[in-house]
């Protein structure tokens, strides 16, 4: 069951801008809809909706988190990390990249949150990581 939008929607279009899958459609001022075949349950729309008119896949109302700085971000725990690229691939907004140093003996590259602003706190990286090498935390929180 994908996410959906109730008739509380005022058609402000913020969800449309934040959706990484271009899954939301609707005219300005009109109730928006989510294309079920495209929705990936990332919850980005739910977090930005000023009306709290988005229902998650369990039909619960998504809680708005008004300021993005209070959104959780992935933190990589290197001692657990396998450098397996699963987290990088799981990210729908391309915000995780690689980092490595040419000088050290450890020739592995490790994932790093490259673009904090792009992160939509979908948690997919943490969910998909098989070895618990990613925890979701509110920066400075």
């Amino acid at each position, binding site marked *: 069951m994908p996410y959906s939008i109730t008739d509380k929607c005022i058609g402000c279009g913020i969800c449309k801008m934040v959706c*990484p*899958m*271009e*899954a939301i459609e609707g005219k300005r001022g009109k109730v928006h809809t989510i294309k079920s075949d*495209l929705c*990936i*349950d990332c919850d980005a729309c739910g977090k930005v909706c000023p009306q709290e008119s988005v229902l998650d896949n369990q039909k619960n109302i998504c809680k708005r988190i008004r300021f993005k700085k209070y959104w959780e971000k992935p933190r990589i725990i290197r001692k657990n990390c*396998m*450098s*397996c*690229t*699963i987290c990088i*691939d799981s*990210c*729908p907004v*391309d915000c995780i*990249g690689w980092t*490595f140093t*040419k000088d050290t003996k450890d*020739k*592995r*590259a490790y994932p790093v949150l490259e673009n904090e602003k792009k992160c939509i706190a979908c948690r*997919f990286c943490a*969910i*998909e990581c*098989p*070895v618990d090498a990613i925890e979701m935390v509110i920066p400075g929180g």
Partner: protein
Amino acid sequence: MGKGYMGKVLFVNLGTGQFHEEMVPDRIYEKYLSGIGLAAYLLYDRIPTDADPLGPDNILGFMSGLLTGTGSLFTGRWMAAGKSPLTGGWGDSNCGGNLSPAIKRCGYDGILFTGISRKPVYFFMNKSKPELRDASELWGMDAVETEKRLIRKAGLKRAHVACIGPAGEKRSLISGISNDLGRMAARSGLGAVMGSKRLKAVVLGGAKRIKPHDLQMVKKLSRKCNDAVKESPPLLAGIMSARMGSLLRILPAQMITDGKLYISLLDKWGTSSMNQISVEMGDTPIKNWKGTNEDFGLDKSAALSPDAFSDSVFVKYHCYSCPLGCGGICSGKGNVKETHKPEYETVMSLGGLLMNNDPDSIFDLNDILNRAGMDSISAGGTVAFALECYEKGLITKKDTDGLELTWGNAKAIKALIGKMIAREGIGDLLADGSKIAAKKIGHHSLNYSVHAGGQELGMHDSRYDPGFALHNSVEAAPGRHTVGSQLYYEMYQLWKKVKSLPKADIMYSKNTKFVMDKEKTISGAACSKYMNVLNGTGTCLFGAFLGAERLPVFEWLNAATGWNKTPEDYMEIGERIQTLKQMFNIRHGIEPKAFQCSDRAIGRPPLEAGANKGRTVEIEKMMAGYWEEFEWDRRTGKPMPSAIQRLDIP
């Protein structure tokens, strides 16, 4: 809750520009898995028997694996499949990198191309809609530059690209399909199929979720598997491992091999770890398979030591979902600024096979072949053939435009490969592999082409391990070193999961390897069945070296799909896939016997010196026994109606 697979495939007709989505019923996955099995199911009756592999009727599939993206490890491989222009029968090729999850993230288990486009195009899929876009400006560009250009153009970091280089465009029958900047699905000549369709590239930028049935269970199994990867036994330094190879050669007996050792070697050096030790043991064919380890001794092979390649690695390369990272990105060798580390197969097919021990030339050629999109094994094998023809006077300086094709002449080898890529002069003759070239040259030159069904053999000598001769000869896509052998059977440790399978002996005389008994045909068939399961799930061969207990493919499958199948059930699926691929070949007029590998590779006549002196492989007996094991006719290799019925193949 998902089942690990996406449940549909996309057909793209390049002739009409139409897209057609097809739902795949659950029962098909239960019978054939995804990946290679699903490809065999889809292509079996859709490619007409008279289809020209380079014509519009051939279908080229880009397939992902069932376990890809489910949280399992070592499961990031994708497969190209279609009718091979090189062998005329079933063709498949397999590659790592990050393309496999990208296929599923577009919502499909496979994207299959039919027809021929009028102008060069590339396939693009981002979030929702597939498109065919003009590729005229990319035509002629090398694979690495093509990929970089397409990713830049797409403006998506996450986009993954598979493409062909000039070799595929020129329909070289030994060309492959590149992804992740020069990793290659090289075998079966499927690059030529892509070139014939004027499909330059496939660009995938989807972000769909891949949902397993029980993610927590898949992850639990993955953590255990990762623990096994991390516990690595101590390693010998580079030169010591080479000396160990010499010692192993002298001993009359050998011990069962635990693949954990290989995992440690792969972790430190990648496949290049085998460069010297394999030559010393007698595993590497030398001088177009007529030489021996004595011709390429430690003094010669030292320049190609594992360290010679790993020293220039500045960062390890991990394919998707791989905890090991046997690849590496190198800089500062030869004329190459940045390239994938040459693999053992490439090093030896351009090294020992040609008596070339100049590492810089191998670095350069590895990069040149990756960019051109040409199979380095077949390129090396074909050059070896040409060098021997030159030695025997069947081709002369006049034919080679002045190149002196002498053994180990790195400069001439490089120039010749350049000609093959460009199809210039003698390069045009050699660009389709050694068997086709031999037919054109005539004069017994076929004796110098070492192949199976037209495909050059990998760098593992069947006079050292006869299992390689078997799988080179009996696989539907012949000339394959990545399915099975006696060594692989020991490392797969399948008997720990499938109780009916024989346990490999802990210690045995080397000569017993060459005695063809029932146990060997059972283990050979088991390797093929298991490899179909691995190729149905997108699993890496090197992961399989951990052994079936440490790499829990069967358990991952149950957790990802929600099925409750036994290892025996999965091995039956492997058997079904193998039988269907064989039926594909029969349908396309292939006589299985014709895929028997060249006499030279099986010791006819036997070598007079070196590690494999005096050894001959009883290949006919092995093939007949193997076929019988599958309930195929032991004389012809054709699946019996009873087997087809038992396996419920439509």
